[in-house]
């Protein structure tokens, strides 16, 4: 039975998988980055479909916005060109690729079968108010720790990318 929700899910899932496959097939890193942005936007749509509005917004703003802009920026800064073609060894091409496809299908199938009895619980939109009260009450200590993590990452990135001898 194809309800509108399932139709939307199938479209978004197809877009996400197509983006991920395109990430693998593209040779130029900037095309891979754009494919990854497509995957992230599709996932934001799936979060909305599950009633996680705040996470969907954060996904678009932080992931598709900030992190991917950083990637594109570095690709352009380093002037990264097309990936060199390297020959897959014959073993990898004729044994590895089919085996990994089979393995992927098997994992997806067994996850689908093991969780098929989970009820499709009703989608209740999570209000940002509820989420933030949980975040700032029960998880306030981890939240503060992440600010330290960001600070240290910032300093680390600065120290690493600094040119030698320009103190």
């Amino acid at each position: 039975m194809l309800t509108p929700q399932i139709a939307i899910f199938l479209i978004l899932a197809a877009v996400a998988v197509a983006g991920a496959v395109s990430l693998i097939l593209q040779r130029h890193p900037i095309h891979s980055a754009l494919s990854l942005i497509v995957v992230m936007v599709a996932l934001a749509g799936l979060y909305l479909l599950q009633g996680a509005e705040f996470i969907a917004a954060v996904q678009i703003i932080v992931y598709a916005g900030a992190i991917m802009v950083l990637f594109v920026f570095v690709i352009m800064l380093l002037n990264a060109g097309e990936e060199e073609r390297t020959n897959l060894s014959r073993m990898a091409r004729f044994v590895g690729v089919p085996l990994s496809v089979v393995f992927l299908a098997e994992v997806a199938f067994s996850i689908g079968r093991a969780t098929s009895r989970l009820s499709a619980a009703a989608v209740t939109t999570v209000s940002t108010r509820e989420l933030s009260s949980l975040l700032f009450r029960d998880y306030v200590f981890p939240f503060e720790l992440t600010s330290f993590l960001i600070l240290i990452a910032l300093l680390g990135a600065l120290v690493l990318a600094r040119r030698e001898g320009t103190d």
Partner: protein
Amino acid sequence: MVPTSYYLVLSAVLFGLGVVAFIFKRNIITVFMAIELMLNAVNLAFVTFSRVLGELQGQVFVFFVIVVAAAESAVGLAIVILIQRNRGTLNVERVDSLKD
């Protein structure tokens, strides 16, 4: 209503594609993007279980995963810039000084 298993299968497929990209891609920036793809797949599973179990903690976890991914990509891309500066290549197969 979308069955829960659909979301989890999609999550597994995306994670698998991330692993494939991680192994097959030669450009170090694309390898980083594969890691981001895997993190995204895990986030989808978190959000799905958060909805099914009626617990908000899953979404809080997604929030933290996104924060850690941001920190990781900042440091990682700085390392990429260093590799390009010191070795003049972005090909992971050329970064093999531990082999010699």
